[in-house]
């Protein structure tokens, strides 16, 4: 127990040197500030309850992720092998591997990346370096947000209407890739915008004063110093494009197609293709009698690819943060 603080008496009895008596104070909560009273204890308990409740909620979010991954791995175990990845499905997809789907996803991802990366990066350059603060800019920003919020099946409908039918591409790798490209554009725009914004304004002003044009400044100083964030955006785009099903379902992906195993050039731009995401859907809902390891195996390959790509992006982000040049 802390001793009573000595306080000089200010009232009538001058200089008697006695400390006032606080022990008989009747106002709750205003006694000696250093001892605990019932209200404090109650406060502490609510505090602890609240903290635990929120912690529990957090745990309940983390927990499913772990269980899901574990369960999928467990069920997929019988088929997981390199052979699974590189051989064709057989027996009406009830046996064999997922090679056409694996290659198809690679094609779709690469082509959609080739289209969306340049447009996305330049669009972000426009927004961050050229755009003035007016209604047009607001509309562009709004459009980007809305583009990100369009349901995936609506992207599929758009792909059918615009690429498959109007542009006469038919159901093809090209049509599906373009649909994916437009769908994932906001990812690249957002990541690039953030990276560009992190470059200090002072650098740009220094360049302008040296006679560099806006574009020269962007090309020589701004972009090279944003490359990390841009790459992160690209990686995230890859992850999304690989996982989407609806946009490719009607624009170019098919249930079943056999191609030469191990041939990385087996698909043409106007061919239809299989894809990992589509394949998972197909064999778990459209084909009866598939031994359960196969769909679980496909799920593991798809999920594994996506998670690995995302972890790569996270690692990249962390290492870049520590390697700053200014």
């Amino acid at each position, binding site marked *: 127990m802390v001793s009573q603080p000595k306080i000089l008496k200010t009232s009538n009895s001058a200089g008697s040197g006695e400390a006032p008596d606080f022990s008989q104070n009747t106002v709750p909560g205003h006694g000696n500030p250093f001892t605990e009273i019932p209200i404090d204890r109650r*406060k502490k308990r*609510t505090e602890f309850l*609240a*903290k635990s409740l*929120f*912690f529990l*909620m*957090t745990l309940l*979010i*983390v927990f*499913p*992720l772990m269980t899901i991954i574990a*369960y999928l791995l467990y069920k997929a175990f019988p088929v997981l092998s390199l052979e699974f990845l590189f051989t064709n499905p057989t027996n009406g997809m009830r046996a064999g591997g997922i090679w056409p789907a694996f290659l198809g996803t690679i094609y779709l991802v690469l082509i959609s990346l080739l289209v969306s990366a340049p*447009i996305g990066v*330049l*669009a972000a*350059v*426009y*927004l961050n370096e*050229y755009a003035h603060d007016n209604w*047009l800019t607001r509309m*562009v920003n709004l*459009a*980007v947000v*809305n*583009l990100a*919020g*369009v*349901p*995936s*099946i*609506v992207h*599929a*409908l*758009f792909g*059918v*209407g615009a690429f498959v*039918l*109007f542009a006469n591409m038919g159901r093809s790798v090209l049509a599906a890739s373009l649909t994916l490209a*437009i769908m994932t*554009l906001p990812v690249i725009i957002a990541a690039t915008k953030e990276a560009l914004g992190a470059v200090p304004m002072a650098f740009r002003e220094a360049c302008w004063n040296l006679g560099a*044009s*806006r574009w020269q400044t962007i090309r020589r100083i701004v972009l090279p110093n944003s490359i990390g964030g841009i790459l992160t955006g690209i990686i995230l785009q890859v*992850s999304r494009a690989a*996982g*989407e*099903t*609806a946009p490719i379902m009607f624009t170019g992906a098919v249930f079943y197609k056999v191609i030469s195993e191990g041939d990385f050039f087996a698909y043409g731009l106007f061919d239809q293709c299989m894809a990992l*995401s589509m394949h*998972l*859907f197909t064999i*778990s*809902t459209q084909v009866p009698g598939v031994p359960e390891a196969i769909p*679980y195996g496909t*799920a593991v390959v*798809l*999920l594994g690819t*996506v*998670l690995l790509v*995302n972890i790569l992006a996270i690692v990249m982000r962390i290492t870049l943060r520590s390697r700053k040049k200014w």
Partner: protein
Amino acid sequence: MINRHRLETLTEPIIEGVIRLCGISSIIFVFGIFFFVFQEGAGFLFSELDVVEFLTSPEWYPTSVSHKRYGVLALIAGTAGVTVLAMMIAVPFGLGSAIFVSEFCTPKIKEAFKIIIELLAAIPSVVWGFIGLTMMNELIIEVFDAPIGLTVLNGGIILALMSVPIIVSIGEDSLKAVPDDYREAAEALGATRWQIIYRVLLPAAKNGLLAAVLLGIARAIGETMAVLMATGHAVKIPTSPLDSVRTLTATIAAELGEAPVNSDHYQVLFLIGALLFTITFFVNLIADLIVKGIRQK
């Protein structure tokens, strides 16, 4: 050296033009999406479709030989049911986690948790659908002794897990945006952490939290594959969480493959797409306006 200057003044506007074009491309794409989707279905809309029946009738029989009916009310109810259930789970958990991460966490744990949330957000919807079809299905049949596990409950839980990352990340952003002065002032008055959160932070961040919820809702409404695989195939208005339903999105995905091009059925599916676009457009618009409001403060 003179030639270089002329080159600069010539190429610069061209490059700027290309960049501007890319910049406004998003606007072009958004309009394009609505245009191409709407026009595939416009023919039917303006000729024979009874719009009132379309929006208010629960009878969806597009393939009936004798009596075709295109009422989407049951589908809307399916979407609504799954979304509402998902939000009932995702909002408290998501906000609770956002509060935990933002107010109670050490930086190291915060970093780890954010990584997990990011990974959760990265899981493709078809994988979620697969989980609903297999793990969740079995779980529900066992726990509730139900005849079938592909139900509103299944879709709702899956959607909740899919929407939580958005709610957590935007929720955490808005809590972070509340100035530290508020916290410090409340602490100086003797409030506990919980009191600070409940009486100061939540009211101050309510705009952002609302936006987070709205974006979660938009996500849930627009989700296709997961609900296609997890909610079953019954087109009817659900009366309990253990009923099977069909959502607007799943219907398009399930039936587009079989509808002959340019048939009435085909066009109606596109119209449903246009309807979905409009709904999510406005929800996103409202959420964005709210978020803009807080970021500018």
